[in-house]
């Protein structure tokens, strides 16, 4: 094989001038500064939480995005050639799609072998005949291109269904421009924002609603946070100003798509989908899909919603189309295909099949349609040998394609130890506007694992680069926020919150508070537990241990009198670090839960909030090798501090919109419940009035200082319970939580008749009345046993009614639609 093309050298040996200037600047930074900037790129990626999910990765699901801060450079004249080639290709692909899902003339005229369409599992017959109002099937298209040893660009693959990576491209640009600000300024790099602005206006223009009725509602339909590119979906949605929704957030009613929000159904005009073709509608497409929207196809048929890309557009990703593109181009566009595809043979053609069988050793054999059959790589990677490949091709030739192996060009890569050259592939993005296709001036460059490797995929951990397309003229600054020529409507409320997000916010509130309470209980226990004093103080420790038991932090039976000191130390370790489902209340389990929930609302919360929570998770991830109470208390203090910073961010920085309201309600419910759980244990303890025990009550309710400032004496049973239960000026008291909840409930959107008392309000009134009527002095009277007191009854009532309230909220506002299927 001929030697690879070198990007820096171009066709000669000396660096091309653009590359020369860039490499010179990097050289001039000096080794120390280079190392500093390299690290700062890493840090920026981490801090912005740019991740890529890798399926079945032992290191955990999220992997930081790999960015090499040294960009790929392309001159404007070179870029013009790429643009022309890919605009032509996208135009062609769009026409072929329109024909496949319409008259199928290309098949009748013999230009397109029928198997290319009919054998594809992705050819969706249910959407045949649906024509988008704009006539554009392929709204968004990407091509992976690479340069051959002769310096020519070739298309390796086409992304016609869900072109991924545009969001990562944006993230790469942000970091790269900050790491190399001087070079970025001086090189006249074409900006990306203009492309995304066009993106917005094109999608808005696709709105199908008659009369418009104000701004069209565009949503990004995501498969959910476990999808490999979830980060970029959330990132793009936020950048473009769209709601990120899952299939269960949408519903079809009367052939229209609606978003389920807290205040009812809101019409959706445009769907930018990240869900695969066949999964978009379980009613008419794949019956087993849990990601789609039942009835979506019917809404599309009625022309009431538009979707990008059109359903079924994935068929053109099949490599089997490539050998036919030159002829299709002549037939459809009347010209020669400008940019060639990587040499590909579809075995469905007899001549191609012969060619493949003759050259089996030098070709890669792949399934032609979808990945349901094994891929036969090069010589060594064929477990059944060439004979197995031959048999498979003979039996069903149309299932197979073979591809040439190409040596990609090499681009300089910036690694920790210096600059090395690696093979590079470029993904370029195109947008179908009413006036034809436009190209994003830049793209996602990816570099392979080393010289000579050909397969490049983010799944196996190669690195990415920004791509700088240089301009001859000074570049114009574009911002995405608001074009000056369209008037802006002032708004005081954000777009209505999807019910599912309200649900997640509520539980995020509950779990952060549960984590806080768990850490507090444990700290109170550890402060009272010392191996030296042994059993002496155990009486005051017992209610704390019982609470830890009740919260699933330590195993049942740990609070028993005969528990040894060593066993208890083991229990405490578990209460912090256990990942067992039986210790659901361990700090580590709770922190993991909190981070999972935070991830689900990540596109609605600030990066700071996310950072505070992920640090929280990190702080309980490093295990102590042996028990050290001091170390454990230090850890708990850190957790409580981070928890406080989370609450501070929530209180100071979150808009008082519905998301915040549900988060706060979750916190109030949980705080009231944790408090009552603990008080129920202390109130019936034999030494309920012991100052040490009452101290722990004050600690748990974070009310020690308030108590001292008021009473200036040793904790007294009556005064302590009054302060933590009934004092409505104490933000940690039970009554305070209930009153805050009452305010929240009054402000929730009402769905039933106006003026009626909602079921959740009814439940709360019951608690409020009981709390307001309670007089803590009964505890000092000595008339009744504490266990039978009104106070104990109130605690029990709270612990019974609050879970009901939580349930009623779920039924009323979260509408957790359990989808089922029937087939007869």
């Amino acid at each position, binding site marked *: 094989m001929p030697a690879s093309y070198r990007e820096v050298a171009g066709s000669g040996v000396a660096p091309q001038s653009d590359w020369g200037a860039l490499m010179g600047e990097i050289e001039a930074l000096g080794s120390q500064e280079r190392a500093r900037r390299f690290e700062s790129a890493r840090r920026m990626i981490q801090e912005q939480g740019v991740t890529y999910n890798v399926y079945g990765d032992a290191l955990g699901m999220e992997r930081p995005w790999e960015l090499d801060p040294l960009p790929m450079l392309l001159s404007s004249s070179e870029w013009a050639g790429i643009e022309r080639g890919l605009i032509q290709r996208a135009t062609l692909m769009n026409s072929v799609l329109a024909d496949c899902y319409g008259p199928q003339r290309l098949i009748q005229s013999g230009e397109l072998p029928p198997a290319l369409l009919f054998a594809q*599992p992705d050819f969706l017959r*249910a959407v045949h005949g649906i024509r988008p109002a704009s006539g554009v099937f392929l709204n968004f298209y990407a091509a992976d291109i690479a340069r051959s040893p002769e310096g020519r660009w070739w298309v390796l693959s086409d992304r016609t269904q869900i072109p991924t990576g545009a969001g990562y491209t944006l993230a790469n640009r942000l970091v790269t421009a900050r790491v190399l600000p001087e070079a970025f300024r001086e090189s006249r790099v074409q900006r990306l924002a203009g492309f995304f602005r066009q993106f917005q206006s094109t999608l808005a223009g696709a709105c199908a609603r008659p009369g418009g009725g104000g701004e069209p509602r565009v949503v990004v339909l995501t498969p959910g946070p476990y999808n490999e590119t979830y980060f970029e979906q959330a990132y793009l949605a936020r950048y473009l100003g769209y709601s990120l929704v899952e299939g269960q957030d949408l519903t079809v009613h009367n052939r229209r798509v609606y978003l389920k929000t807290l205040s009812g159904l809101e019409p959706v005009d445009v769907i930018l989908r990240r869900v695969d073709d066949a999964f978009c509608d379980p009613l008419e497409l794949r019956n087993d899909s849990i990601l789609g929207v039942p*009835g979506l196809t019917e809404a599309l048929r009625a022309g009431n919603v538009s979707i990008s890309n059109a359903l079924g557009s994935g068929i053109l990703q099949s490599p089997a189309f490539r050998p036919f593109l030159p002829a299709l181009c002549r037939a459809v566009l009347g010209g020669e295909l400008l940019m060639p595809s990587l040499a590909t043979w579809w075995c469905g053609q007899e001549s191609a099949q012969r060619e493949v069988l003759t050259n089996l050793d030098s070709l890669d054999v792949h399934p032609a349609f979808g990945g349901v059959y094994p891929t036969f790589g090069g010589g060594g990677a064929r477990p059944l040998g060439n004979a197995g490949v031959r048999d498979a091709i003979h039996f069903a030739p149309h299932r197979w394609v073979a591809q040439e192996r190409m040596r990609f060009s090499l681009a300089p890569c910036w690694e920790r130890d210096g600059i090395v050259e690696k093979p590079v592939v470029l993904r370029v993005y195109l947008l179908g506007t009413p006036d034809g296709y436009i190209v994003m001036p830049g793209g996602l460059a990816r570099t392979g694992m080393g010289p000579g490797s050909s397969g490049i995929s983010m799944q196996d951990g190669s690195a990415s680069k920004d791509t700088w397309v240089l301009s001859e003229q000074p570049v114009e600054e574009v911002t995405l926020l608001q074009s000056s020529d369209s008037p802006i409507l002032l708004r005081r409320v954000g777009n209505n919150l999807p019910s599912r997000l309200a649900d997640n916010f509520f539980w995020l509130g509950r779990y952060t508070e549960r984590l806080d309470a768990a850490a507090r209980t444990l700290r109170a226990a550890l402060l009272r537990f010392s191996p030296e004093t042994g059993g002496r103080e155990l009486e005051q420790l017992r209610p704390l241990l019982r609470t830890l038991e009740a919260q699933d932090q330590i195993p049942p039976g740990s609070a028993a009198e005969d528990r040894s000191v060593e066993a208890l130390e083991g229990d405490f370790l578990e209460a912090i670090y256990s990942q067992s489902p039986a210790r659901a209340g361990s700090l580590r389990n709770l922190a993991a839960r909190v981070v999972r929930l935070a991830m689900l609302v990540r596109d609605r919360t600030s990066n700071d909030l996310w950072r505070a929570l992920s640090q929280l998770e990190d702080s309980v991830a490093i295990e102590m090798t042996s028990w050290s109470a001091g170390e454990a208390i230090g850890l708990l203090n850190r957790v409580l501090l981070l928890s406080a910073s989370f609450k501070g961010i929530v209180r100071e920085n979150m808009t008082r919109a519905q998301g915040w309201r549900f988060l706060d309600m979750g916190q109030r419910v949980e705080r009231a419940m944790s408090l009552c759980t603990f008080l129920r244990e202390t109130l019936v303890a034999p030494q309920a009035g012991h100052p040490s025990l009452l101290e722990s009550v004050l600690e748990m309710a974070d009310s020690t200082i308030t108590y001292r400032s008021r009473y200036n004496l040793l904790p007294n049973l009556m005064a302590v319970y009054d302060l933590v239960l009934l004092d409505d000026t104490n933000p940690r008291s039970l009554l305070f939580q209930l009153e805050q909840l009452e305010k929240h409930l009054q402000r929730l959107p009402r769905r039933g008749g106006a003026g009626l008392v909602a079921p959740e309000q009814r439940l709360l009134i019951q608690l409020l009345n009981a709390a307001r009527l309670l007089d803590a002095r009964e505890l000092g009277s000595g008339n009744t046993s504490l266990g039978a007191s009104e106070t104990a009854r109130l605690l029990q009532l709270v612990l019974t009614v609050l879970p009901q309230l939580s349930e009623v909220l779920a039924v009323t506002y979260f509408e957790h639609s359990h989808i089922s*299927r029937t*087939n007869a």
Partner: protein
Amino acid sequence: MEYQLIHKTVYHYSEPVSVSQHAARLEPLRDSRQDVMGFTLRIEPEPDVLTTRTDYFGNSTTVFGIRELHRELSVEASSVVAVRPFMPPVPALSPFWREVAALFRDPVSPKNTGPYEFVLDSPLVRIAPVFAQWAGRSFGEKTPLLVGVVDLMGRLHREFAFDPVATDVATPLEEVWEERRGVCQDFAHVALACLRSLGLPARYVSGYLRTVPPPGQARLQGADASHAWFSVFCPANGWVDFDPTNNLIPCDGHLTVAVGRDYSDVSPLCGILTGGGEHTVSVAVDVIPLGTRR
């Protein structure tokens, strides 16, 4: 022969359903073999939206949505269908099977694109060498197409046991093949896999049988519910039906509702519900002859 046809499906749900959406393929097909003189669809509770269209394969498809809280859904399709008298083709006169298979190898002559769609893999039926091997015993070097298919149908009927409890709509073809038992739907799928693996176009047919057989004839298997069989493309005759469950070439006792690549294209009634919990379903089919016209 004219028939009154009633197909009633009733679902009972253990939990209330708040939203349901269904797709129904219950209206009999209009083609050269049969006419549909009347068709009505009664749905309880009443849908708030209902649209009917002709699908990709030419079947009438109705999509409806209900947004009223319900615990029971009843869908009753009644039609009056006339099946024209039909002389089955003489198998021995059909073209050699190899000649037919040759028509559907690439590159295809454009006139054959329709049948071509039924040579390839479909969602529930994937071709494989084992099917080709087994089916090949019915197709010698010079066997006329329909002679081979009749033989294949006979073997299928003998070697596979009719067993209404062995499988359900979700049982994969591979399992039916291993167990050698199933119902009409499974037998049709096996036949499709066999024929397509030999490169012959074959499609799935769903429909009904008359409930009470003509005097002196035995009651056929599958007469009390939806039935299914398969159809082979024969250049001289067009699509020719075969009922492997009863080992016969349908004449005027089979009523066609829909055709497709496999069951997934023609499923009579499928739904997506919000809520519903567990469900039970009862299906009743009645096909009553109304006498012969003219």
